[in-house]
């Protein structure tokens, strides 16, 4: 497996309050020491509750924000290329679909012009060729010519999202980071848009990072999954393994909250209780311990590291043992 994108020890801190005289503002890490690899052609899903730092991690992977620590390499090069040219070249290779679809389109420009714009920006091809490519991609995402001269406000949410996808895809990037690409859409339309994304991925051989809080959605698209909790990755591995047999208590809680079609497969409800604690003031030790049904004293003081358990990596002191325990009980 060759990693297309490698992020190591990524951290991004924000100010947590106002600056006081003679005192620096307190800071917190929205993303805290994250390591991630994405192989060419695969889809990595990043899942977690709202506010756990998914979007922040996304902008770091894209190179749209400077990490406070750590670095991101794309195909061996720093993703935040120095100088305008390197930056621009990198933008051609990595594209993004933002969380807020509606807001990421210019409200006053007809969509045709907006989809063509990346070609204008990167000066790809002559005018006629640009228009031809734009028509082609608009067709590919299923937007008919009668819509092309409309402004975004005159389109439905699903159509707007197709515009955003077309705009990201027209550059034929190698990788796309999708930040909650469908969470603003109706469930019925979600499926269509997801299908479109998968189809594009197949046709173009895209690598994808798919950020979502919705495990039902992630199931449809992910090859691999990274579960985030308060700025850290707590479990990561192949989608199949993680979804079939989650090892981290947080992952188990997340999955338990998702309605599963087959009730027989529904795990015992180990719902995490309580609100997620504030990232401004994370609990010591395992950050999940105040809500964890399996917490042991050690969890309060010692930070669990990611370690291989049952064919994926999990950051939990108890995880393997829990598994063994269950196996033992089941065997008895």
């Amino acid at each position, binding site marked *: 497996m060759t990693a297309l994108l490698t992020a190591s020890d990524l951290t991004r801190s924000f100010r947590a309050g106002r600056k006081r005289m003679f005192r620096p503002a307190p800071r917190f890490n929205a993303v805290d020491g994250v390591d991630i690899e994405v192989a060419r052609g695969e889809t990595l899903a990043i899942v977690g509750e709202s506010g756990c730092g998914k979007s922040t991690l996304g902008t770091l992977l*894209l190179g*749209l924000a400077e990490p406070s620590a750590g670095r991101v390499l794309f195909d061996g090069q720093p993703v935040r290329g120095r100088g*305008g040219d390197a*930056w*621009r070249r*990198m*933008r*051609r290779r990595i*594209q*993004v679909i*933002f969380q*807020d679809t*509606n*807001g*990421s*389109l*210019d*409200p*006053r*420009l*007809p969509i*045709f012009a907006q989809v063509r*714009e*990346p070609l204008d*920006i*990167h000066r790809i091809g002559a*005018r*006629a060729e640009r*228009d031809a490519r734009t*028509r082609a991609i608009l067709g590919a995402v299923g937007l008919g*010519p*009668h*819509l*092309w*001269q*409309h*402004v975004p406000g005159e389109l439905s949410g699903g159509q707007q999202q197709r515009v*955003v996808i077309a*705009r990201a895809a027209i*550059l034929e990037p190698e990788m796309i980071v999708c930040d909650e690409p469908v969470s603003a859409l109706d469930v019925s339309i979600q499926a269509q848009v997801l299908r479109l994304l998968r189809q594009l991925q197949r046709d173009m051989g895209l690598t994808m990072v798919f950020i979502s809080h919705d495990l039902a959605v992630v199931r449809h698209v992910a090859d691999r999954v990274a579960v985030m909790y308060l700025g850290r990755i707590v479990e990561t591995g192949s989608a199949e393994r993680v979804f079939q047999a989650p090892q981290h208590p947080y992952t188990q809680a997340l999955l338990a909250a998702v309605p599963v079609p087959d009730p027989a497969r529904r795990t015992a409800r180990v719902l995490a209780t309580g609100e997620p604690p504030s990232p401004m003031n994370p609990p010591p030790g395992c950050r999940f311990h105040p809500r964890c049904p399996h917490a042991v004293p050690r969890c309060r003081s010692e930070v669990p590291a990611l370690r291989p358990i049952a064919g994926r990596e999990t950051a939990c002191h108890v995880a393997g043992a829990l598994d063994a325990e269950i196996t033992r009980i089941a065997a008895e």
Partner: protein
Amino acid sequence: MTIAAAPAPSRPLTHRLGLGGLRRVPAVVLIAFAVLALALVVTLFAQFMMPYDYDAMNLRARLTPPLPWEGSNPAHPLGTDKLGRDVLSRLLIATQTSIALALLGTIIGAVLGTVLGFLAAHFRGIVDEVISALVDFQAAMPYFIIALAVLAFMGNSIVVFLFLMAIYGWEKYARITRGLVLSAREEGYARAQHALGAGPLRTYGIHILPNIVSPLIVQLTVNFPDTILFETSLSFLGLGVRPPLTSLGQMLGDGRDYLVTAWWLAVVPGLTIFLVTLAMSIVGDFLRTHLDPSLQD
């Protein structure tokens, strides 16, 4: 044709300006628009419209009153002045001068202010501090009076005058633009541009400017009457436009000396200034309520 395959309607200007929901325009506003249109026509074509040369003297027809009054002469519908010059012809040229100056001044000021506002918002930091300080300074000094002194000392120069008019009011555009750009930059479409690899000039020019242009246009309509008054007041005081050139304020200032014998020499240009500023204010109010409700006083 680039989008030949797309039989979509082209977008009318009103729509792109956010006036799409506009149904009926009140009669007063239509009249005001008509007055402005007429003023614009005069500004463009005064030379072809005037019956006489505006400087041609006819000493035998001095101080002829305007039409319905006793002793008037249909050859001079608005009368003549102390040198027998046709008031209508002079009025046309004066209107042309006043409006052209005010337009130029307003536009230069608007461009200057908008650019500075963009710079302040783009660079932040020290650039922002300096520009904001200039804005405050501009707003806090008695500019009209300073301009008066400058003009008096710099002498009879249209360039200096135009320069002073352009400086008048720039800070309002700068302030508005800065605020709008700062918030527009946080909008998703601006961030998306960045992610697409677009440079700041492109993002500002193609995306942010069109999205913030409505309040700027409103400001333009608010500022334009002020600029006309700035010009006419200074010319009225004998400091702005001076003979042999003429402007509405200059005509009015001249006519003031003949109030007893020839009232029309002051009333005709005065009324014209009034009508133009009134029309502009009405249009400005109308645009303000329809383009940008948040900008209401």
